[in-house]
């Protein structure tokens, strides 16, 4: 299959939806690719209960005249020139052949993923990401009456704890690695964002019976109370206890789930594959959200972790700019500084305490796909060196999980992206790019 678009948007989260709406409004032939069946991205994908803003944006997005490729994933770039290019996408349904998506303008709104750090026991069943547990509960995992420790860093901790409590979970502790002092600038920035402040206050009210411990982190997740993981072969080890650390004190907490995530890292594989200039791990853009690669825009989390409002604004700016409405885009971008101040304060608040580097023991797994332990990595000199000599990052997650960890642990910069940017069927790479001018896609306008 081949499809041609004026503007192609990758990601149907807040940034991608806003970009698609703006470009479609301007009369562009728009395509939107997202690997999930439902739009909305990390915050709004899971139906209920959707906040008003989410409902409004999703409604607008569904009404916009755009071709939606839901359940499709961009795996490679076949051609790229200043006047357009071709991306290859694969469908989640293996019997559907890969598609070539031709575009004149490309907007990357690929979002972010959670960062995991290794500590003893982090690979036990029932230890999962904060967003991960949240998504499972929304997907039907029974949580009522279960004891949950929520740990890591970032605003997600409070939001997810509030939601779990609403679903009847017994959240035993919320452990934020940052100190109170480190979080102060975020507090100040929130004062200038009444909406966020109100939301934060509501989350804290919902979690008021749970201690919110700053400067606190898990030292270990244990399968038996106080003991390490020794049991009869055959029985699945199960999480029983989490050892927490705060102000030189450590203690054990019994629990059924540990939700642990250390803020977010941007999905920049596609941006790096397209040669977009990066700085400190984020995609560099100008005021109109144009990247250094001509014809390619970027919006949302890959430019900085700023939350929904920043993503919506950046998405709209990118959509307008791609549609040639530079003036409208520039005038909207005047609202960015306030939001960027929040992004920076958030980044500061989530900066990881260097002591978290000491959590992993020599035998703690760092790369789950290939079962590479901390001890094997210490003598390596770079991500590539580690990959070649220990297989760290060589598995199906392509280093998405361990890469963020080893960057923090050892300061290793991630390797340049290699196609396919997601594991893809061999057959999806077997077709040559169609050169001719394929049929115009049908526009799905309701």
């Amino acid at each position, binding site marked *: 299959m081949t499809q041609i678009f004026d503007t192609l948007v990758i990601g149907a989260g807040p940034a991608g939806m806003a970009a698609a709406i703006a470009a479609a409004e301007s009369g562009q032939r728009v395509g939107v690719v997202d690997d999930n069946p439902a739009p909305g991205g990390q915050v709004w994908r899971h139906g209920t209960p959707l906040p008003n803003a989410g409902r409004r944006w999703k409604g607008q997005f569904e009404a916009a005249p755009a071709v939606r490729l839901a359940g499709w994933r961009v795996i490679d770039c076949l051609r790229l020139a200043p006047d357009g290019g071709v991306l290859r996408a694969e469908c989640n349904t293996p019997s559907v052949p890969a598609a070539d998506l031709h575009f004149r303008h490309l907007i990357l709104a690929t979002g972010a993923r959670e960062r995991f750090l290794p500590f003893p026991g982090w690979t036990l069943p029932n230890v999962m990401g904060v967003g991960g547990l949240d998504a499972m509960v929304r997907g039907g995992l029974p949580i009522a009456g279960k004891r949950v420790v929520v740990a890591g860093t970032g605003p997600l901790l409070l939001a997810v704890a509030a939601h779990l409590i609403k679903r009847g979970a017994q959240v035993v502790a919320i452990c934020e690695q940052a100190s109170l002092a480190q979080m102060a600038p975020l507090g100040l920035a929130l004062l200038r964002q009444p909406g966020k402040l109100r939301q934060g206050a509501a989350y804290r009210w919902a979690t008021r019976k749970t201690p919110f411990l700053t400067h606190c982190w898990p030292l270990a997740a244990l399968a038996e109370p106080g003991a390490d993981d020794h049991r009869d072969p055959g029985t699945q080890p199960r999480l029983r206890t989490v050892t927490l650390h705060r102000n030189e004190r450590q203690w054990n907490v019994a629990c059924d789930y540990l939700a642990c995530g250390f803020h977010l890292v941007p999905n920049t594989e596609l941006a790096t594959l397209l040669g977009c200039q990066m700085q400190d791990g984020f995609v560099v853009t100008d005021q109109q959200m144009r990247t250094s690669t001509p014809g390619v825009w970027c919006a949302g989390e890959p430019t900085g972790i700023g939350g929904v409002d920043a993503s919506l604004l950046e998405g709209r700016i990118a959509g307008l700019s791609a549609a040639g409405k530079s003036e409208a885009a520039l005038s909207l971008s005047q609202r960015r500084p306030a939001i960027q101040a929040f992004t920076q304060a958030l980044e500061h608040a989530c900066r990881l305490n260097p002591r978290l580097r000491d959590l992993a023991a020599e035998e703690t797994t760092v790369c789950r796909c290939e079962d590479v332990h901390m001890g094997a990595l210490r003598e390596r000199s770079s991500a590539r*060196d580690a990959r070649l*000599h220990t297989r760290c990052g060589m598995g199906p997650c392509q280093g998405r999980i361990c890469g963020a960890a080893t960057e923090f642990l050892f300061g290793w910069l991630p390797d340049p992206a290699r196609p396919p940017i997601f594991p893809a069927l061999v057959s999806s790479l077997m077709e040559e790019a169609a050169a001719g001018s394929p049929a115009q896609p049908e526009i799905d306008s309701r």
Partner: protein
Amino acid sequence: MTDPYDVIVVGAGIVGAACARACAAQGLTTLVVDAAGVGGGATAAGMGHIVVMDDSPAQLALTRRSQQLWGALAAELPSKVEFEPRGTLWVAADEEEMQEVRRKQVVYSAAGVRTEVLDAHSLAAAEPQLRPGLAGALLVPSDAVLYPPAAAAYLIHQAMDLGARMLPSQRVVAAGRGQVRMEDGSSLSASRIVNACGAGAISLLPELPIRKRRGHLLITDRYPGFVHHQLVELGYLKSAHSVAGASVAFNVQPRQTGQVLIGSSREFGEEDAAINHTLLAAMLRRAQSYLPRIGALKTIRVWTGFRAATPDKLPLIGPWPDDPSLLLATGHEGLGITTSLATGELVAAEIAGVKPEIPAQPYLPARFLDGSRAASQQGLFEEAAHD
């Protein structure tokens, strides 16, 4: 300045590693310098097929000797090297290729390499994933598969146990006349210098008759038992499947991890590591024409690597006639993982002044400098491109 070394090996790919190990074993004080770390060049890109090849008698002698050396080393290789005596199946599609199977068997047998001819039936039994209707195959049981970067690391490790030193993260900008000069301005001296920079050797010696020949590989997720042997089409020898001056061939390898490594492609004139999608697609379709279900496997990664190709498909091993202190160990094209061990043996024998196990003459760099030095090397390549 420190005491001069007997030998400085520039390049810690598998070839440099093998040279260092062999030199250290001769009791020579040895230093290895690499711009990066161990085994990060072509050695990190290659398939790791230890294979006997018979394009020419000299190639047969070098690959045969190397294969024996790998066989002798096998027992002591650590598990990380993933050495597995998988054997090669040279797959014949039709009766014409079966004749080639029989010709090859005679040649291999004369060189002391045991082989077995499989008919259509036994080939299908040995590799059920192959498409029906193939004519048969030549099985070379002594061929093997390994993981090249770990093999290079092991050879360096052994060299160091024998007293060699390793200097990583030092790019060499000049090597010759007993001096090795680094990018940071420092320099070291040695009686003999071995240029083992792979395709990078020309940056230190631009007049070398070496060209980069890019290759693509694809690795899948884990599918244990999908294939059992290294599978290579006999068409490989004819280089028949040409796409715009480049060629692809069916060449598939089972890894110890259960992953499947799919090759291969060859193209001249490409300097950057980017993927050529047209060629990759052609390579995969070629693989699918032999393994119809290969399309359903999941790809983890695709990459390219550079072979250092010479006009006569033989490596450059031995003294560089213009500089008595300088030796070459490069130009191994698509066989350097295999031939690294025999290369090391030849280099160490030359430096130590002992008689090598196989005649060194066919690989001597001097062969390209006979007669008029300017004898168009381009012309030599063009001839080679036709076979």
